[in-house]
């Protein structure tokens, strides 16, 4: 009897201990979520603030208004930048997906002379900082007249041209599809291209969606390349380069809240798209991380 009570007591103390850890974890995670959300709330409050367009010493706006958005659309080049980025993103989503899937399929399913060498070369090329080759690419684009006012086709070309080196995640996905499927179809007389379109593609929906999504979202966040290629021509800026300028010393006092409004206007659709397709993103990054 006493032994029984003892185990009961032990059990109870254990469950109490577990409950305290659970509560601690809840507190920790809630705090964490707060920290993670603060900047976004701050962004919303600033975007809708009616008074003073500079940085102020309080968080909550005294007067809520849509004035910042009116300025954004009517008095600045923002819509220009927005459509530039949208066009680049749309083209990039198509071109980059075609290129990445082609390269990944060829390297994953086919065996040919020089395949290993090719993969090693691409690996080595990837070790050079991207901006280094961008400097020379800028000169090349300038020679064929695709910088400054013609920066949009230039940017599309640059993003798409180098995207072949980012085949790793898609290849990792193709690697997991059993080869016996290809072989069975080949015995039945299907050509390689038929296997690609009729068998592998229909099975690869997650990776196709992942690739399209990443290719569409990337141009919205690119500052480094866009700032170089659009250098000195405001109409051709993308949103990142355009909004960045509003936070320098000359502009911040009259543009801070407008920047927040612009940031919000860019973030909402991109974030919504991302959240809607979250599942594919998670599959992509976890698969990619595990298989290298």
């Amino acid at each position, binding site marked *: 009897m006493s032994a029984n009570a003892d185990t009961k007591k032990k059990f109870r103390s254990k469950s109490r201990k577990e409950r305290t850890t*659970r509560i601690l*974890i*809840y507190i*920790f*995670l809630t705090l*964490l*979520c707060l*920290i*993670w959300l603060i*900047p*976004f709330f701050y962004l919303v409050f600033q975007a809708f603030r009616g008074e003073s367009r500079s*940085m102020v*010493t*309080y968080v909550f706006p005294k007067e809520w208004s849509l004035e910042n958005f009116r300025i954004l659309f009517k008095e600045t080049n923002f819509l220009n930048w927005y459509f530039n980025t949208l066009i680049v993103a749309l083209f990039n989503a198509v071109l980059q997906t075609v*290129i990445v899937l*082609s390269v990944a*399929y*060829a390297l994953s399913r*086919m065996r040919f002379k020089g395949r290993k060498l*090719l993969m090693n070369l691409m690996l080595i*090329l990837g*070790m*050079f*900082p991207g901006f*280094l*080759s961008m*400097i*020379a690419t800028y*000169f*090349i684009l300038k020679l064929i007249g695709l910088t400054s006012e013609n920066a949009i086709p230039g940017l599309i*070309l640059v993003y798409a*041209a*180098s995207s*072949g080196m980012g085949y790793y995640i898609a290849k990792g996905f193709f*690697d997991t*599809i059993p*080869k016996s499927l290809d072989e069975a179809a080949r015995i039945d007389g299907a*050509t*390689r*291209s038929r296997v690609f379109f009729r068998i592998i593609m229909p099975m690869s929906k997650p990776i196709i969606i992942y690739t399209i999504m990443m290719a569409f*979202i990337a141009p919205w*966040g690119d*500052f480094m390349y866009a*700032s170089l290629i659009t*250098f000195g021509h405001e109409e051709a800026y993308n949103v990142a380069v355009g*909004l960045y300028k509003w936070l320098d010393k000359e502009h*911040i006092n009259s543009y*801070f809240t407008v920047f*927040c409004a612009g940031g919000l206007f*860019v973030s909402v659709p*991109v974030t919504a798209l*991302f*959240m809607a397709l*979250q599942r594919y993103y998670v599959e992509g*990054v*976890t698969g990619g*991380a*595990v*298989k*290298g």
Partner: protein
Amino acid sequence: MKQMAELDYLGLPPFKRRLHDIGRFFVSLPGRLLDLLKKIPLGLKKVLFGIGGFFANIGRIFKEGDLKTRVSFVIMGFGQFFRRQIGRGIIFLLMEAVFIYYMAGFGLHYLADMTTLGTEAVTKTVNKYGLEVVAYKDNSLKILLYGVLTIFIIVGFIWTWVINIKQNALAQKLIAEGIKPKSFKHDIKSLGDEQYYKTLLSVPLLGIVIFTVIPIFFMILIAFTNYDYSHLPPEKLFGWVEFENFRTMLATDISGSSKFAFTFREILIWTMIWALVATFSNYFLGMFIAICINKKGIKFKKVFRTVLVMTIAVPQFVSLLLVSKMFADEGIVNSLLQKLSVITEKIGFLSTPELAKIMVLVINLWVGIPYLMLITTGVLMNIPADLYESAKIDGASGIKQFTKITLPYMLFVTGPYLLTSFTANINNFNVIYLLTGGAPKTMAYEGGAGQTDLLITWLYTLTMQNNDYKMAAVIGILVFLVVAVISLIVYNLSPSMKNEEDFQ
């Protein structure tokens, strides 16, 4: 952990086998490092023999070739014409014609100029009205660019030439054996079948050559010139200076000042510290948070996860620029702290050197933890549950379970990811540039560098603000060397890179 006999090993239950593998991996690390060092001379030998074999092969083809094959050494496609491969013949002949036309009209001229990069930038002449006319003549930039392009075209041509010769040899052999060489129609068809990889890879590879390989080659050459703000074409010329820029970057410049070398050393050290701390702090804290969220009995898993994932979704230039303004001297954090009388003087979160370095690392946690949370969640779910069950029965505590099961498993599986994220952090432009822009600046540094600058952001500043292309190119090459050496070591040590076909 000792190596087991094969039979004992196979007799183990699968999860113990896995643990044994992981243990062996860590034990064998030093040995692998030695093997790697031994491999380098062997690799070199292989390359040299490969080149020797290649020339011997070409020589043999010429010796054993019939007239058609031998003429094809000079007139490409000749053999193909007379072996009823008209389509191939036309393509080869056309390529040769275009190549000769390009070289004669354009290429040779630029190739010759490559040696000096131009001798006269502008010419001044007096026209018939007695006015001085200034015209641009040699443009070093264009000469170098077209020169590099010509070199690549020559390499490409030699490659087609070799293919042409090999095709001839093959066709000759086939005919001698009484087999008909394949028709052009068959060639086209096979591009959708056995040779489908050529169709798939041609456009992407062309893009990579033009927009990555040629630019990198070009920039490597720029590192050996004096191309900077005082040598900007078309008004001025620039020329070759051999290793002078590397000397400036690593030791002293012409005037004997070692300020550039000092700046480089300091920034390199900070870049390494940054990459190391950023990678591992994100890794362990991300893993910790993933474990918290995935713990049995915790509810709202999806809510917690979604909130964290939002930082990935919002474009970094919005979130990071905003955070940088929140922590600015006049920013909201300082204002609120003053209002709450926590502080009297403003804190220079991003404007005092030491604090700024800590702050970028902390804010980087905010950016990076969500990724790690996602990745580790995926891996954690794959750890066989029976491992924990048996550990519990054996009386292992929570911490012991973590250090003996979770951590080794995680490190083993995510090893390659750790490497990629380490190298990605070396080149992490966004976080640093959008948060501080490299500031606080200091007079002790050369080339507009600041205390939180990484090599990549310094490279950016040197290009965009200082037009100091030569030093930017040198930094780019040095970054490559650092990344390449680290990757080479880790790739050769990591086991998970080698089993590419495991899944198929």
